[in-house]
């Protein structure tokens, strides 16, 4: 098991959002967490990435307890987080952003290999190498954020709301690039509001409601579940 989250409690200050959330991911899987607004999807991601320290429970990654570690330490363990707001370095060029993505890699050779890999994945980024990240379009920025996340050669990629604020055509592009990543053997945990699309592409899913895991199972089964169909798909 690559990631095992057990009875995780988390929140902001005194406000508890997640109540006893448990989930697990095997190597090479493409897993999603779906749920309505305010269910705690992003909180789950931020807690795993170390941006919020958990109130209770355990997060075991690769056999090591990582809950409570600083975000930079967790990145070094091999988890890369692509946040909803992307958190790009807006006054740096695309190239510099990607270079910073490989901050934890000390070997120059490996760093250049990762750079070539990301550029081959997103040729669009190679075209815009010297452009400032802040001056790019929303879809390109999303690609850059995912590319930057891939630069550290992560074992697990956390992707939070990749379709947020994107036009449908661009959303499709982002999903395609995630598919390509899965085929290269990256394990992905995806959080999305676009339930139909997400359940169609992922292997397995968790339904998060009011800070608790409501349902879990194969994505195809979830898509057929009467409760899910009623609440999320409106049928």
């Amino acid at each position: 098991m690559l990631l095992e989250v057990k009875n995780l409690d988390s929140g902001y200050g005194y406000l508890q959002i997640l109540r006893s959330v448990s989930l697990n991911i095997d190597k090479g899987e493409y897993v999603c967490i779906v749920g309505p607004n305010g269910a705690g999807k992003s909180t789950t991601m931020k807690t795993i990435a170390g941006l919020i320290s958990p109130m209770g429970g355990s997060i075991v990654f690769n056999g090591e307890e990582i809950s409570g570690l600083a975000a930079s330490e967790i990145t070094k363990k091999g988890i890369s987080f692509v946040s909803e707001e992307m958190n790009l370095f807006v006054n740096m060029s695309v190239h510099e952003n990607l270079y910073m993505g490989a901050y934890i890699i000390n070997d120059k050779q490996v760093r250049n290999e990762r750079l070539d890999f990301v550029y081959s994945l997103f040729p669009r980024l190679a075209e815009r190498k010297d452009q400032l990240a802040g001056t790019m379009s929303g879809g390109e920025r999303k690609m850059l954020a995912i590319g930057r996340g891939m630069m550290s050669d992560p074992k697990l990629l956390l992707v939070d709301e990749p379709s947020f604020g994107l036009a449908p055509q661009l959303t499709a592009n982002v999903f395609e690039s995630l598919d390509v990543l899965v085929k290269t053997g990256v394990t992905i945990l995806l959080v999305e509001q676009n339930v139909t699309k997400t359940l169609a592409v992922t292997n397995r899913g968790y339904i998060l409601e009011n800070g608790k895991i409501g349902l879990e199972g194969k994505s195809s089964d979830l898509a057929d579940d009467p409760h899910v169909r009623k609440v999320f798909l409106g049928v």
Partner: protein
Amino acid sequence: MSENILSRSVSWTKSAAGISILITILAAVVAAMYSGPYLIVNTIVTGGMLALVATGLTLMLGVLNIAMFAHGEYFMIGSLTAYYVFTPISNYISEHPDSFMAVVGPLIAIICAAIAGAVSGIISEKLVFGPLRRRSTDNWVMNSFLLTVGLSVLLINLHQLIFGADFKGIVGYWSGMPVSIADVFISRDRAMAFVISAVIVAMFWFFMTYTRTGMSIRAVSQDITGAQIVGIDIEKIVLLTISLACALSAVAGGSLLFMYPSYPTVGLEPLYLAWFVVILSGLGNILGAVAGAFMVALLKAVTVEYIGAGWDFVVPSALIMLVLIFKPSGIFGSDVRGALDK
């Protein structure tokens, strides 16, 4: 390609940055023709040192979001250290005038000043800013600003208590004939002060632009969450930034000891001038701060020359008011966010 560069440089001369730099150069040339080239020499020496203090200030503001009002006190610490290190060296030099210390001695004093600045920066982070940051970051800009004002008062009075309020100055660093460039005589101290500041600013710019550590400092200043995500240890960068910023200010204090003897409030003038520079050039922009430093230095020199020495803070202040009213982001500050925007 060459057309592209041409059109870009034409449009640059029409931008606020271009206009103000061209006006500055023109004003410097005109003033030099009327009053003699020593005015340009003064501008360059003060401007170079101001650039050091102002880049430190810019760094603190950009990375830590601290409106630093104790920066002048690190200037004071630098000049004090240089004084106590250089006094025995200068006694030694007067006994052995031909020893190598006559050349290296001043540099040792200035390097000691830089180290003292860096160490005191680290101490202030550990004792003052770090605890506040861990306690609460609510209303951070205001709280940290008040903290720096308190720190400034504390350091000024500590100086007075321990070392006394008298002027602690030296006659000069490097003795010998002044350097002559095109009929202008520049004392060796002034020439060296400019060389030191130019070398340090160039090294600092290179460090920030091309090295991995420099890039991670910029990354933290642009998006702190993004920096955490890519694995940058924020605490380490914060410590590094504070020690760098304070060392820059202390180097300025150390190498200007021959002009500004050390006394408790010696840091206030460079502090205010550096704030003029930062507001004029825009927050968090290093190259802008360097250009702004020379503008403010020229403005000060011209004011002293034509209006009177008592007015040297009035005219820059009036200019700052105009800048804040008409271009609040500063002359070079188009793509930089203000401290309160974060």
